[in-house]
């Protein structure tokens, strides 16, 4: 057999050869062994994770001459023909070419006939989401009750587009993205069998670049082998992937932080020269900015072995949090709009220039520095305070950080005096989140050695150390950039509301919600006294709840004191009660109460009314009231009487919802 690309050569022929997807394999194997087979399966998952492969192996399992088995022999005529793609009773249809209802009708008529040589006639319909609505409808009956000798295997990368009527007739399996480790492991195996030498670090890079898809990984591996003239080395792979070496990004952002336009553009030009795709630069930049925000608010979340830890913190000390947020937005939008620019280089430059334009050193006090957003309600930015931006604040500190970043080429650990953290401990700010149960080194004055210590500063004014039930995330004091806490702005939150900071999807609009929430500590005049009205409290907290809104609205107050709240959440909302959401709620509560509040959440049904239910009931009452009002209105009555009008009750809506 002449050369075939790896992705093709290494397509698994047996269930046992599949990487990942154990959950699917197990379920199917059981079904096959017990002969409890559904007649229609839907396999979903991103590209290259095994949909078509599993479908074909299943076809073999069904038609293997040794019997219906989870382990097709691979030797019999049926297995061989299926492997070779010429088994008459296996029809692989790509929905995209056959979207029309006539095509589907033909296929379905075909299903009437018994299989010619197999036990089952298997239809694999790929990218099934491309079918037209009428084609889907035509399929419904047959999907529901196909002839006994027919099996349908539908596959799609986009299950959202498949109508629920079809979904409900299929047994759905979601194939998982593979982890970089799984991918790297498999690539190593492939290379060993292929007798090609490689460096594990190279495979790790490929594993990440594959973004969950084994086929992508194998295609990239092919490319790497070609690129490296037969050897797969880390350096080569890095160059091949155009993997943006993060060091250059640090340099870029450092120039940006200093509002040094010429340097920024010079560095950008360098990147362009190295042929790195602008799309990936902006993507990586967004990731880096996100990390900066983490460094600024939850420093302990930055792993100790994070390669550029020091540089990260150095940079974090040079850019105000809201600017980090702003640049993030600009980067995301800039990336989206790359295609609209006269050429990508221009688009990239303009993105950087925009960041420069809104740099505190440039922007005018009153100008609203809104990056264009899709929604009409433009993301409002905090008006950068007219005072010189914080790069000037804490002169020593920033200089040190600068020096660190400048010396990035050498990567020597910075053993210089640290980032000065002006005003940190001084503002005895109430600690929003549960401060460290670990003995925070008595914090006080922030002259801390080396930049890494930035994270260790726990500004802990005397506070009860309350152990939280789920101490997962330990927020330490907002580090040096706290200088800008004065500029906190509540407006930010409206935008950040519903995003859980741990979204796996690629960087979306807003930054971690609590990143900003940290800033906006409202120093209340009088300490808050809770009166037991959970619903009222939830309303008062409003948008500050952020991601924990669902939790709060669907919980019932079980017991309370001024420093401890017990909530009960019904089982159906258990997913809203995970640690992360609880932490978020605690944060919001702490703000409101002015001190930390212990939070205990249990999953149980108390039969009481949650704020959500209360709200719903309230709404119903209002609607009923409105309806009565309308029905008794003389004008309406006249319309009904004289003109035969009908009041459509279902369309009555509160004004606020229009």
């Amino acid at each position, binding site marked *: 057999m002449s050369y075939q690309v790896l992705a*093709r050569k290494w397509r698994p022929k047996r269930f046992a050869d599949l990487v990942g997807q154990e959950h699917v394999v197990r379920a199917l194997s059981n079904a096959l062994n017990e002969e409890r087979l559904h007649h229609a399966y839907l396999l979903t998952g991103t*590209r290259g994770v095994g949909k078509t492969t599993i479908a074909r192996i299943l076809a073999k399992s069904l038609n293997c001459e040794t019997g219906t088995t989870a382990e097709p022999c691979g030797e019999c005529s049926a297995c061989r023909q299926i492997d070779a793609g010429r088994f008459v009773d296996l029809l692989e249809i790509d929905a*995209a070419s056959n979207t029309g209802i006539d095509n589907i009708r033909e296929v379905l008529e075909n299903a009437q006939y018994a299989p010619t040589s197999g036990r089952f006639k298997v239809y694999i319909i790929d990218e099934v989401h491309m079918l037209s609505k009428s084609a889907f409808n035509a399929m419904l009956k047959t999907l529901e009750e196909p002839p006994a000798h027919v099996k349908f295997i539908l596959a799609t990368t986009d299950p959202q587009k498949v109508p629920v009527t079809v979904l409900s007739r299929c047994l759905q399996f979601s194939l998982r993205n593979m982890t970089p480790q799984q991918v790297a492991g498999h690539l190593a195996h492939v290379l060993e069998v292929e007798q090609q030498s490689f460096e594990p670090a190279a495979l790790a890079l490929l594993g990440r670049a594959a973004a969950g898809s084994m086929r992508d990984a194998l295609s990239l591996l092919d490319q790497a082998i070609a690129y490296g003239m037969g050897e797969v080395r880390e350096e080569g792979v890095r160059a091949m992937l155009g993997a943006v070496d993060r060091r250059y990004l640090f340099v870029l952002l450092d120039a940006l932080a200093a509002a040094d336009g010429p340097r920024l553009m010079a560095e950008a030009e360098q990147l362009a020269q190295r042929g790195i795709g602008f799309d990936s630069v902006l993507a990586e930049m967004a990731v880096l900015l996100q990390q900066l925000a983490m460094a600024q608010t939850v420093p302990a979340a930055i792993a100790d072995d994070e390669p550029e830890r020091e540089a990260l913190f150095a940079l974090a000390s040079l850019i105000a949090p809201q600017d980090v947020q702003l640049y993030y937005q600009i980067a995301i939008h800039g990336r989206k709009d*790359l295609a609209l620019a006269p050429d990508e280089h221009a688009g990239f430059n*303009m993105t950087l220039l925009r960041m420069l334009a809104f740099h505190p050193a440039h922007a005018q006090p009153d100008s609203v520095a809104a990056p264009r957003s899709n929604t009409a309600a433009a993301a409002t930015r905090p008006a950068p305070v007219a005072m010189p931006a914080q790069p000037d604040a804490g002169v020593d500190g920033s200089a040190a950080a600068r020096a660190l970043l400048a010396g990035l080429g050498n990567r020597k650990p910075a053993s210089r005096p640290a980032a000065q953290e002006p005003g940190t401990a001084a503002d005895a700010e109430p600690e929003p989140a549960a401060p460290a149960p670990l003995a925070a080194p008595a914090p006080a004055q922030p002259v801390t050695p080396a930049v890494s210590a930035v994270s260790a500063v726990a500004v802990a004014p005397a506070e009860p150390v309350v152990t939280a039930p789920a101490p997962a995330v330990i927020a330490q004091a907002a580090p040096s950039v706290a200088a800008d806490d004065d500029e906190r702005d509540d407006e930010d939150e409206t935008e950040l509301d519903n995003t859980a900071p741990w979204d796996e999807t690629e960087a979306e609009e807003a930054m971690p919600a609590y990143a900003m929430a940290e800033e906006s500590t409202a120093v209340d005049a009088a300490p808050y006294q809770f009166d037991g009205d959970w619903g009222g409290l939830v309303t008062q907290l409003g948008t500050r709840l952020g991601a924990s809104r669902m939790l709060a609205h669907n919980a019932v107050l079980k017991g309370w004191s001024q420093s401890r709240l017990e909530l009960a959440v019904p089982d159906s909302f258990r997913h809203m009660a995970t640690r992360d959401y609880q932490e978020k709620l605690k944060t919001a509560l702490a703000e409101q109460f002015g001190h930390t509040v212990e939070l205990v959440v249990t999953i149980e049904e108390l039969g009481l009314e949650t704020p959500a239910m209360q709200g719903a009931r309230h709404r119903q009452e209002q609607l009923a009231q409105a309806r009565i009002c309308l029905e008794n209105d003389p004008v309406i009555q006249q319309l009904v009487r004289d003109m035969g009008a009908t009041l459509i009750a279902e369309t009555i809506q509160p004004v606020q919802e229009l």
Partner: protein
Amino acid sequence: MLFPWQLQDWQRLNAERARLPNAWLFIGPAGTGKLEFALHLAQSLLCEQLQADYQPCGHCKGCRWFEHGTHPDFRRLSPQTDDEEEGKEAKPGRKLPLIKIEAVRQVIEFAHLTAHRAGQRIVVVEPAENLNPAAANALLKILEEPPQDVLFLLVAQAAQRLLPTIRSRCRQFPLSAPSPAQALDWLRQQGVSNAEAELAHNGGAPLFDHDPVLAKLRSQFIDGLGQPTFASILNLAELVDKQKLPLAIPLGWLGKWLHDLAGLSLAGIVRYHPEQQAVLQQLVLRCDPVALMRCQDALQQLAPFGQHTLNTRLQLEALLMDYLKIFAGGRQG
């Protein structure tokens, strides 16, 4: 034919001939000769008397047919306007052409028959971003598992705009862009007048359609932008409208101008209009970067509709109003 800056890429590619993929995806910036490279490769694979370095001979039947566009084992998938589909001449229009599913079906049929010349069968898809979704999906199966001796060559400027399912099935091959010196050299050899300015305007990409008429219009437009007054704005809009230019063209001109304005104002760089440095300097003195960004926003909003039959004049006037505001003295009205 290979461009001077592609010679190394050619060597690199030749090293992969022992391991031909089912599909290659050639990526690189616009206007740097990706299609030509792909075609050169296709020709070399169909040439019946290959020379050293896998270069096509140019004389054999295969080469002759290829150069005439009549090689029976070669197919090209490129966007067609409706006119072309009916067999008429392509008219430059305001509609964006796509590659449609019917063309893909024909190529699939073609791929399933054995070769005419007992060699390879090559399909070039360019630009791959212009496959409409149905066409792209229809291509997936055969792209992944083509018959023996069938090779797909995809050309794309922005790989991230392709369906991930398509990207996944290709071996990516980035092509080099020319250095500024190479690009300039080449342009001069082609006898393009005012090569430096033209090259700068095209962002360093030397393969652009040199249209002297359009270049003149552009010049006028830029001159107008250099004198931002109410009157000149109206003139510009009228100029564009009279020439029936699709909105995309002045948007592109303005976009590049804004880039240089912002670049000079904030970072001291000029990329597209080096010959207008003096004018730009003057403008920069009066320019408010934030207002500039707002104008840029407005431009981005319009960009997707570049080929739409909107009232170009109105749109442009509104946009140019925003342009004026950049110089309104730092404060919006």
